[in-house]
């Protein structure tokens, strides 16, 4: 075992040269790459966090909007129901009024027709009675008596009915 000076010195130089070479070809690129990747991961995580927050906010917004829309729809339905109810009431009332009017008109018509018919009948009967009485009695009776007789007769007939 003996020391060889030039081997010692060349070993030292070799080592330093290799440090330089590996710095250039190994540590530099690899450490740079590792750092870059680390940074990228951190960035990505941050971005993901941001996106998540944004999504959360959007979700809340949309939920609020949906809630508003629901409320509005409910309001519209309520209003429509109310209007429908009102319209229905109006229509029914109108129809009732109309019906009542029609009924009343019909009744009036009936009673008018009835009294007309009665009058007609009355004069017809009177004429007939006069004619018959004249033939039976053979004598004429004045108009006044005649009328009285007819009226009595009619009255009796009506009562007998």
């Amino acid at each position, binding site marked *: 075992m003996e*020391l060889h000076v030039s081997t*010692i010195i060349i*070993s030292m130089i070799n*080592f330093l040269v290799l440090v330089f070479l590996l710095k250039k070809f190994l540590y530099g690129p*690899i450490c740079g*790459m590792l750092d870059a990747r680390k940074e990228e991961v951190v960035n990505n995580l941050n971005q993901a966090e941001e996106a998540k927050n944004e999504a959360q906010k959007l979700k809340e917004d949309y939920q609020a909007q949906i809630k508003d829309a629901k409320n509005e729809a409910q309001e519209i339905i309520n209003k429509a129901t109310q209007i429908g109810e009102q319209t229905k009431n109006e229509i029914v009332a109108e129809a009732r009024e109309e019906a009542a009017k029609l009924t009343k008109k019909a009744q009036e018509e009936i009673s008018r027709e009835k009294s007309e018919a009665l009058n007609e009948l009355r004069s017809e009967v009177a004429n007939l009675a006069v004619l018959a009485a004249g033939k039976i009695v053979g004598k004429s009776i004045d108009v006044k008596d005649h009328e009285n007789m007819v009226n009595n007769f009619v009255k009796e007939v009506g009562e007998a009915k």
Partner: protein
Amino acid sequence: MFLTNIAYASEESHSAIQVVFSIGPVEITSEIITMWAVMLLVTIVCYLGTRNLKRIPSGLQNVLEYGVSTLQSFFADLMGEKRAKQFLPMLMTFFILILCSNYSGVLPLAGEHIPGYKPPTSNVSVTAGFAIVVFFSVIIFGIKAKGLGYFKHFVEPIVILLPINILEQFTRPLSLALRLYGSVYGEEMVVASLASLIPLFLPIPMQVLGLLFGAIQAFVFTLLAAMYIEEATAVHH
């Protein structure tokens, strides 16, 4: 007798310094050439793995990322996130270089005598070189972190420990160098001895152990270096 002879013979040939060629006064040994090969291999692998980095890693990039982030988090446990990042290049290079150097001795041909191929960490000069780097970086990083206050710990807890504290600064790299060298060299010697007895199959259990020891020694060296640096740069409040 027979065994010891073989072991002795192989030890002699292994401990000898093989100078493959020299550039002026600088002698290039087999260990240095092997270390260059290891460095080239490591650099090529890293280049291929990081040449075309993708956001979603696959294959080699995945392996490298896993290694870097595992070691980084290990050092972060030891010395905190910030200093782990600061010292990662140095500490991880120690780990990779020592691990690959140790494993270069596990290859089957390492026991043979091939000029220009010898596991670097089986030579004490190489491990001494690494230990010296640790020695100086502890002092440099200590002064960088705490200024002249770094030297205060030499007289702590009491002044009388000054010689021992100074001695410790030197025994640490010594133990680093010798531990690594002894482990790899010893393992290699055993493999060589076994291989010279029966070259087939017999060295395999030892080589498997060598894989384990190689990783442990690389880890221990790196861990101790990290602890020394941590201690020197720790700012006490």
